[in-house]
């Protein structure tokens, strides 16, 4: 059964007919072609599929596309504007926070949702903010540093 949904993805309004049983992850990747959102487990445990829905970091593999009707979605493709990296992306580059990179889009979006809500998080709050994003390469050390750094940059920019 198909259902009409209307949502905003990375600032662009999208109207679509979707099967009621497909996940938002499947809609984003297979219908919208936004491949930066990754599938790591399909069970909501690893966080590689994290996107931001109305300001909250959400695992899109356990979220139905029809639930996103009327909502505003940000994926990793929506972060850099006019060829400029977002300060969080920039900090990940500078701090060496990236290795295989598969978890990185989801982690950056969790970090963005955290910093949008809490502009000066403690180290413990940062760790909690990305606790749902598994990374097997980095040990998280540089990811945490990068989020701290980007918080400072974002605060200054205000």
């Amino acid at each position, binding site marked *: 059964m198909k259902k009409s949904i209307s949502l905003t993805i990375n600032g662009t309004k999208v109207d679509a007919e979707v099967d009621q049983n497909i996940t938002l992850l499947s809609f984003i990747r297979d219908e919208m072609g936004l491949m930066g959102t990754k599938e790591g487990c399909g069970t909501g*445990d690893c966080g590689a599929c994290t996107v931001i829905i109305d300001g909250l970091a959400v695992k899109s593999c356990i979220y139905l596309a029809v639930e996103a009707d009327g909502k505003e979605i940000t994926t990793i493709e929506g972060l850099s504007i006019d060829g400029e*990296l977002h300060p969080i992306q920039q900090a990940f580059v500078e701090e*060496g926070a*990236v*290795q295989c990179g598969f978890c990185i*889009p989801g982690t950056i979006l969790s970090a963005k949702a955290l910093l949008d809500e809490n502009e000066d998080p403690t180290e413990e709050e940062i760790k909690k903010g990305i606790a*749902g994003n598994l990374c097997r390469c980095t040990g*998280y050390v540089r990811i945490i540093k990068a989020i701290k750094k980007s918080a400072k940059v974002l605060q200054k920019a205000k």
Partner: protein
Amino acid sequence: MAYRVVGRSVARNDVIDKVTGRAKYAPDVVIPHMLHGKILFSPYASARIINIDTSLAKSLLGVRAVITGKDVPYTYGSVIKDRPIFAQDVVRYQGEPIVGIVADSEVIAEEALNLIKIEYEEKEPILDPFEAMKADSSLLHADLGSYQHNKITYPEAETNICSHYKLRKGNVDDAFEKSDYIFEGEFSSQMIQHAFIEPIVAVADADNVTKRITIWSTACNPFVIRKELSSAFNIPMGKIRMIVNNVGGSFGGKAYSKIEPHVAALSLACSAPVRLALTREEVFNLIVRGPGHFKIKTGLMKDGTIVARKIETVWDTGAYAECGPVIARNSGHTAAGPYRIPNVKIDAYCVYTNKNIAGAFRGYGVQEATWAVESHMDDIAREMDIDPYDLRKKNILHYGDEGATGQIVEGTGLEQCLDAAWEAVNRKEIKRKSGSKLMGRGMACVHKATLAPSVSSAIIKLSEDGTATLLTSTTEQGQGATTVMAQIIAEELGLPYEEIYVSGTDTDYTPYDTTTTASRSTFSMGNAVLLAARDIKEQLMIIAAEYIGVDKDELTFEFGKIKVSSQPEKSYTIKEIVSKYYGLNGTLIGRGLYRPDSVPEDSETGQSTKITPFWMYGTQAAEVEIDIETGEINVLKLVAAHDMGSAINPMNCRQQLEGAALQGIGNTLYEEIKLNDKGITVNPNFHDYKIPTAMDSVEIESILIESQQKDGPYGAKGVGEPALAPTGPAIRNAILDALNIGLNHLPLTQEKILAAIEENKEKLEGC
């Protein structure tokens, strides 16, 4: 000598694509009109297949092909050719592929799976490797004696022992007789999983008339897989094209064929592109690090000199050999520890059981053997009342010493690592006790060989604008290889690092490389890239001599500029020379081929004057705190000092050490794949198999030792794998220091620590 690009922590050349989500991985490959595959895996660990009825599945609308072992009666495996693509009447482990389906969508394929009826005769699985080794055990592979295998595998026909590796040096029996002290210990390591975040996915586009097969996959050794496919399907190698872009983590788990033979069979069956994506549960069931068992006996003199060591190891490799025999063998290179021991005897048995298949995991054989031998070292030190650091310092391999395999030590990095790590963890006094918490410190060393023999080749294309593209088959799995290769070219040719482009792997176009494993890329591919850059330089000099009109001997090359000795005021850029030579368009091609020296081992003694082109060294030290009321353990600090040879990109090196440390903490303290008594995995997902999260990250001090590897590119060698091995025993030895309790069986869970505290109350009273 000061370098301009080498030795600098330039930003990785894949990082922008990875933070913007533009980086392409195998799961992102989309071919127009591609179909979707699914595999029906065995629900039993041991069974005979009586009948397979696929008729209902075949008649489902949208199903394009259904295949079983009868349709593809081929076997594969490059260590031992023992593995069917789909089961041939016999099921040897849970997760054995039985039926493959192709359908218009994944949903239809899944529906079709449910329509397949299979009649099994369930059998009692053999789950204990020691039972499997007994003479009267039933055999998993009755034909083991007739299987093809490589030269470093030693199968024992009519048994379940698929390889028995031997190392013999000196005479251990005599040496034990003469020893003042003899210590023995038993240790084990558990079944764990790699837990790379990108699942295993492959897309194949094959034609069943021409037999041309193209595969996009998550593989980390595409040329090995091409060879396996060529042999299994009897198709010439040139018709098989493997394409690998970014790999989302491997840690060895994506080495050797995984689902490539299956996706190829599915695509050939319907002559259409097919995507096969495993679920996380299927990935957990497909490949693991197998359990290991170790018995060690050491003889020492009163002054602490080790004179003999005897080791017996049993490797539970599961239903098929995969690379198990090489794991057993490689463990033998390391198992005696990085010490000067004149008498060593090692027997490593690789044994089939009806369990999950054990494959490569970041320094295979070495992390497990290091766990055992380095734990044993601290037990000896404690018994003899010697400081564990002093015991190591006394026996450690120095320059010019002969190691257990018969190779003379060429580097000096090990002792530097030992000193640096121990100094760092001892910088300030620790409080031994605080309330119910006890604190301790421990250390562990590692030495590790790389793969031999092996070959790496590289091609550099220098364009008329002076920018360069490297064609290489080293796969980028997160380790930063593409960055290091670009730095080497930039340094050698004096080009801007940002203007060096590095290809992904495409076996149609990129030249041969044995594998991206064994921490071999920086050294082996790095050398091939260096040779290719020098080839370019040589050609530039010839062209420049012609263009300038001077003799070639008058020219010198200085960081991207060509100078003429008779005209010191003038210099020519690469761009100028190349564009003048070719006119408007053209490309210079540089070629590099590197085959490091090695000498094959003696099959009876394991001895070789050069078993490996280089050895890797490291020492880690841990500081832990244990609550004796709850058994809870906190790793307060971890120091990792490793010998890089030289750090071409220090940031990349630190990334390896930091990432390995937390992986090691998970592997040591809580990770374990659990099987029930029927041999079925009970925790094949991230909910029940916990890996460290950001909440578990700890303070890690990474120390880069640079001993200069004499034949490494700019002095560099490998670092990725040995970084994982010492973490476990360093933590274990810190627990021993804190509690006076030695824990010998991984993982060291809170439950296990608490139970040991309860059992050893009297030992704790003195703490």
